[in-house]
């Protein structure tokens, strides 16, 4: 630490006080003031990459086994690279579908319902992975999303 002797010919150099960045109200300060944070926001939990995220609504029963039911809303992130075991949005023969991606032993799209056979991915099928499903949202009270 070093001292500098204030040069008293310059009145400004002699006095240097820290500025308060907070508004100080007269009276007793709120003890909670130091602890105020933003409230929790579901987007933080579910949407890591907002510019690459879109939402879809589910119809059909092929993914019941993993807990995806008709009417659920899925959060889909296009920025993620799909790995073995991911739930993905895929395009099969020009139509969107939700399936589990299997890369071993052979590439396939798996349903989570024994009534639906797996879809093999090979040279003959036109399959494209469109995004990775990161969350599913279900309404238990039949409430629908409200639009403007």
């Amino acid at each position, binding site marked *: 630490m070093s001292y500098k002797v204030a040069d008293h010919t310059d009145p400004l150099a002699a006095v240097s006080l820290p500025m308060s960045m907070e508004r100080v109200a007269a009276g007793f300060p709120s003890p909670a003031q130091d602890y105020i944070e933003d409230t929790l926001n579901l987007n933080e939990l579910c949407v890591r*990459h907002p510019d690459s995220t879109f939402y879809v*609504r589910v119809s059909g029963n092929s*993914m019941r086994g993993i807990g995806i039911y008709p009417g659920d809303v899925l959060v889909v992130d296009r920025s993620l690279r799909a790995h073995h075991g991911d739930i993905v949005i895929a395009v099969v023969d020009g139509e*969107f*579908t939700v399936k589990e991606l299997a890369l071993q032993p052979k590439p396939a799209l798996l349903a989570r319902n024994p009534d639906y056979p797996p879809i093999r991915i090979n040279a003959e099928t036109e399959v494209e992975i469109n995004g990775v499903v990161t969350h599913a949202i279900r309404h238990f009270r039949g409430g629908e999303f409200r*639009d*403007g």
Partner: protein
Amino acid sequence: MTQLFALVDCNTFYASCEKIFRPDLKHKPVLVLSNNDGCIISRDHIAKSLDIPELVPFFQVEERVKQLGCQVFSSNYELYGDISARVMSLLEPYATAMEVYSIDEAFLQVQAEDYQAHGQAIKAMLWQNARMPVCVGIAPTKTLAKLANRAAKKIPRLGGVCVLDTPTKWEWLLARVPAKDVWGVGSRLSERLKGLHIHSALQLAKAEQKWLRRKFSVLLERTIQELNGQPCLDLELDPAPRKSIISTRSFSYKITQLEELKQAICSYAARACEKLRAQNGLTQDIWVSFEGFDQHRGRIVRQTVKTLPHLSNDTRQIAQIGQQAITELYQPGLRYKKCGIGLMDIRTQTYEQADLFNPQQSEKSRALMAVMDNINQRYGKQTVQLAGAGLQPKWAMRREYMSPRYTTRWSDIPVIRC
């Protein structure tokens, strides 16, 4: 390391937006129509290959287009706006500075070891994250970047990315481009240049600058310098606030009733005032006009300007004076084609003078407008509006083929069978 300009331009933007959530249309021709389903304004590459012309009235080609199996869409600006915002935001990490040039193109200042690879990375990233196909042109000046982008679109073996980083490369291209296709030249000027035996962009680049400047303008001289790789145009990072805002549109059918005109004015006033408040502006002079048709007299256009008692951005006040104006202009018996409202001579809010003797916009009115804007931003356009705009107006735009607003309305998100 030098910095270069990259122009990233979405391919057939509106048509590409329509294809994002319609994988069944991957191999089908797609067309997008202008407001009121008037003209074809966007064609995907398949529709282009079928020789379907752009900017022709839709009804002229409707039959042929349907025979060819084209999928037709009304313009869905809510969807396009959202996709555009995503694309622009995704581009940010790839630039040291960026200028959003239009809804579907942006200039980036870029710095990279390998510009070809950088361009390809941008292209791949936008496809993966937004399913938006783009072309990238990279060069030392904006004018050359524009031409590079055009080359990337037109020459398939470039793979959608064209880098002009040495004089040899850009001169090769300039020799093959007519002068009229250079940014800022246009067909009128190019006709005059032809008289001076300047046909190609390369001839323009090699022309004597000082002499042409005297004959034409300093702007052309700048263009010539840019064609030679000397940057004159910088990124425009902070667009100046607009001096006037005009909201005018055609009706979906010819209307005759004053009540309907008043509703339209009220609704256009609301849109214009929203924009006004977004740029923190105030206005006092309100311009109102209509275009109508009389059986005997033909086309009739009338306009007027009204002045408010003080500067304002209150939708209620501006809509009211607009309705008053259109009531005065109204002529019974006409068939009205369009009407509009303009907010003229816009001032910035900070310059507003407090005037003891003249009234001004009240705090209450400002607070109300802020609440209105907030609600409409959060819950969608026109959630809260003036009753004077009419509920479910008949005159609203025709959008017979509009696609869902997949990314901005919960009721419109895609449904997926699984």
